[in-house]
């Protein structure tokens, strides 16, 4: 029997482990499929990480290094090159690596921290053959930053999420010519600073409301046809434009990697594609927690670490048999607010609720209602899908509350 098994040794898994350890749980094992701790941060060599946590700007590898060092210094057990095959409802973790073969660990509590993968499918709904030269932005990032291999010379990027923007700069620095970044939506889902320092710095055009409609080339990509889209996101014929290029990068968003979670029977949210959790990040299966990008996709790793600390503390309380649950307050949203995390509050204490909106809105209020009674109202000059918002609820606000509804109200 192991007190705590953590699946994934990226930023979420490492931070959860440290938090659980500091809350008194010493019997921990982290299972990581790669040959080092750090997860996706290892290939994110750009800076911009850690301003919240460390009050300085770090690169991805540096941010990962700080946590990996702490994990090592605390003597937390880590199994690298280890694939988790299955997790059962009674918290047995079945895993494999080359030294131990297939083995099983019975856990008292489990923290899911498997991260996310790139969304690729929908984006490839493009006419034409399937020549080589088409990569997901994350794959290209790994090729360039870890393997040292430039996938192409003339690049078009579809999707303006942060990875796409970061890769536009990275490929340019490595000597490629990025001809355009096309974004289907009328706004970018990437951070404003990345549009500035990754595109504008190099005069790379951002084509909003544009998509790729056709691929050209037989063996290797020779070009793409792009088009402007109407309000219904349908390509406008008259706007077709051919751009010669040898490489197309797809940066079409991330999706939580929840194959293992399904096996446990934890309820998943159709909006986040992650588990439904309470304020401790405990899933609907008791003793199983979830945090980081496997729970919902974050824009800042600092928030991933924070969330993982909550999960680590929650798991430690669970293992110690501390149960303060005495409520069941479900949180619903209006649609303009796409989702909240947590989705349910089971303890009347101070809780920070994170949320994400479905569009760019200006001069809004985030209103929290208990039926018709306004519990809290938070003004925002601007909210955007790229940026997670946080709303702090105090224990006293939750007194007598049965359910909460989060509503985005636009000011006239």
């Amino acid at each position: 029997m192991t007190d705590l098994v953590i699946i994934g040794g990226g930023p979420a898994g490492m931070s959860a482990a440290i938090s659980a350890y500091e809350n008194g749980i010493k019997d921990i094992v982290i299972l990581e499929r790669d040959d080092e701790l750090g997860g996706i941060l290892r290939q994110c060599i750009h800076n911009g990480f850690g301003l919240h946590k460390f009050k300085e700007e770090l690169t991805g590898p540096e941010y990962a290094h700080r946590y990996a060092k702490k994990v090592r210094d605390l003597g937390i057990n880590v199994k690298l090159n280890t694939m988790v095959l299955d997790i059962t409802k009674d918290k047995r973790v079945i895993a494999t690596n080359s030294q131990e073969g297939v083995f099983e660990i019975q856990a008292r509590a489990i923290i899911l921290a498997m991260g996310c993968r790139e969304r690729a499918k929908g984006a490839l709904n493009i006419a034409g053959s399937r020549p080589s030269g088409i990569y997901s932005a994350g794959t290209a990032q790994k090729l360039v930053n870890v393997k040292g291999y430039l996938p192409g010379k003339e690049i078009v990027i579809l999707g303006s999420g942060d990875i796409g923007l970061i890769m536009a700069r990275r490929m340019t620095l490595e000597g490629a010519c990025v001809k355009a970044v096309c974004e289907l939506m009328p706004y970018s889902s990437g951070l404003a600073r990345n549009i500035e320092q990754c595109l504008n710095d190099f005069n790379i055009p951002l084509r909003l409301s544009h998509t790729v409609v056709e691929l050209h080339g037989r063996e290797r990509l020779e070009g793409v046809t792009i088009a402007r889209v109407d309000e219904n996101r349908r390509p406008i014929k008259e706007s077709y434009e051919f751009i010669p290029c040898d490489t197309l990068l797809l940066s079409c968003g991330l999706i939580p990697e929840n194959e293992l979670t399904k096996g446990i029977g934890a309820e998943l949210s159709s909006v986040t594609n992650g588990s439904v959790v309470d304020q401790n990040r405990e899933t609907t299966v008791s003793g199983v927690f979830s945090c980081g990008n496997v729970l919902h996709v974050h824009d800042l790793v600092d928030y991933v670490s924070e969330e993982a600390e909550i999960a680590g503390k929650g798991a430690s309380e669970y293992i110690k048999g501390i149960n303060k649950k005495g409520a069941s307050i479900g949180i619903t949203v209006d649609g303009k607010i796409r989702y909240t995390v947590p989705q349910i509050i089971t303890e009347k204490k101070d809780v920070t609720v994170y949320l994400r909106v479905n569009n760019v809105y200006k001069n809004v209020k985030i209103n929290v209602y208990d039926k018709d009674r306004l519990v809290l109202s938070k003004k925002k000059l601007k909210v955007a899908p790229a940026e997670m918002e946080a709303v702090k609820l105090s224990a006293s606000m939750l007194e007598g509350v049965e359910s909460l509804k989060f509503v985005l109200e636009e000011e006239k």
Partner: protein
Amino acid sequence: MNRTLTCIACPLGCTLSVELEGKDIISVSGNTCPRGKEYAISECTHPVRTLTTTMRCENGELVSVKTSKPIPKERVFDALAVINKTVARLPIAVGDVLISDLFGSDVVATMEKRK
């Protein structure tokens, strides 16, 4: 004259308005914190950027590196040319200086590399 900038000093990305008279900065607004003002002034006088990239190691693998300070924006590609010509000796610890004084900054390792 007015110039509108996006502050890149943190992920918030505030929109900054800079009031200019010739080359003199009269006022900066729109910044949420003092770093925004600093950024606006630097951007309107002498723009700088922190460069992050990779360097070859003697065993053929890559080590991620950054400039320890922002360097003049117009020197970014010159700095890259120097970094790309340099081969790093192993082992490397985070923070090791791999090239010193390149356009006023050091080039330091951002990851560990064992022999």
